[in-house]
């Protein structure tokens, strides 16, 4: 983010957080958090390898394919 964005966003997000804070007034002692909204127990399948898309098809969308892989810049001196 640019410096201007940081400044604007801190004002906007403070307002949003003030609104959100209200949920902390609720008594939620002993309430389990939702993990899945519809009752489902495990979705399992056999672990069998299947063909995947060809490498060149996947690399066609990459901004910089390199040596049959994804090209990335050096992580730098840090």
């Amino acid at each position: 983010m640019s410096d201007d964005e940081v400044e604007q966003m801190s004002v906007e997000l403070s307002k949003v957080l003030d609104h959100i804070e209200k949920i902390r007034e609720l008594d939620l002692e002993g309430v389990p958090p939702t993990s899945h909204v519809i009752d489902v127990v495990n979705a399992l399948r056999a672990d069998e390898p299947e063909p995947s898309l060809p490498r060149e098809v996947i690399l066609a969308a990459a901004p910089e394919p390199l040596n049959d892989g994804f090209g990335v810049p050096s992580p730098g001196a840090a």
Partner: protein
Amino acid sequence: MSELIDLTAAAAAERIRAGEIAAAELFEAYRARAVANDLNAYTWVADAPPPDDGYAQAPLGGVPVAVKDLFCTEGVPSQSGSKILEGYRPPYTATVVAKLAQAGAPLLGKTNQDEFAMGSSNENSGFGPVLNPWDRTRVPGGSSGGSAAAVAAGLAPWAVGTDTGGSIRQPAALCGIVGLKPTYGACSRYGMIAFASSLDQAGPLTRDVTDAALILRHTIGRDRHDSTSLEFPGEIATPQAEDLKGIRLGVPEELTGAEGGIEPGVRESFEATVALAERLGASVEPCRLPHAPHALSAYYLIAPAEASANLARFDAVRYGLRVDGDADLITMYSRTREVGFGAEVKRRIMLGTYALSSGYYDAYYGTAQKVRTKIADDFREAFERFDFIVTPTSPCTAFELGSKLDDPLAMYLNDFLAVPMSLAGIPAISIPSGLSEGLPVGFQLAGPAFSESRLLDAAHALERAIGFDGSEARANNGPERKAI
């Protein structure tokens, strides 16, 4: 041609099957309108119908469908309304889109949307705002704003969108069409560019309830590519009901009370529709959803938290935009995301990472997930006494472009009637209940998980009795408009 455009999708499919019109002719009629449209509803339109007219014999009769940009479609731009994915053409197709094509509804085009489905006005699109076909100075709603505007303006026979916290129902309401958010898990999320995975759900935006049922019938079902998708119990019947005898409707005080900020015109239309439901035989009583007033807060913690994790994948390496690729890795990451993401997406990532951050996790994200449990419990209890919960879909009609852009909280508050159902994972439908000062108003019915067939039936009975006429928006937005 206008006669073709005035057919509902189900009626058009019947005519095609009867040999009265050709699938290719219908496709071309809509394609021409889609290409000529100046609502900015589309981000891409197909050049030609699919070569095989065998579509005509399939259940959906070759009636083409407009698809929200965020559904991956092989070889076709799928950008989720974001500059970070500009020009991205995925190597595979989302299950929902593939199922529709198999059932005989080929792809007509991709529709504009708020960036990564974050927004209630479609003004957050990286490809410009969509205009409301009823009044071009106003928003179509969001995030499926392009899908809703396209259907309302007769630029598509029908469309699919996604709903995370109202993104199908609210634009449907603001554009005067039908929008259905199915039970969470009813339709596969495979190939949908993710916003908030525990909430995202695909669903139809259509001219009437029968068309919505038809799309739903052909998109539900367990998909091995999405482990949260479910085998839908039973089938989606064609809605037939003409009355509401024996149906018990609950009106939640917490959502429809005076403090909710519901506009007078919306309230009037809502109350008239409730009275109409009574005349059709329904019993109507107030009900309680004690935690519903906190749904918005919970939603704006849970959805951004999930989004902040989902959007980490846009790293300029495997697909999408890359900025400063000749700098070091960290510079490339941050510059790409600075340039590629719009303001609202950045806002949500900030909010989400904050809600998940060490030391705040329990206070925010953990609390929100507990509130979510309470909201789901509230609905469960309400459905012991009521068949459906009814509310207006949106507290207001379509607002003016730009009017809420400077105030994110005001924009978020727009969703307060839609998010409780999303958090509970239950199905909800919005149907047009009339006009207020020339703008459409939406009426929402919500039912228990997997009650879609009953919900569609009740909506059908109401729709018949309301007799809403959306032809004005189609008449005012055809290609001939340009000659004026």
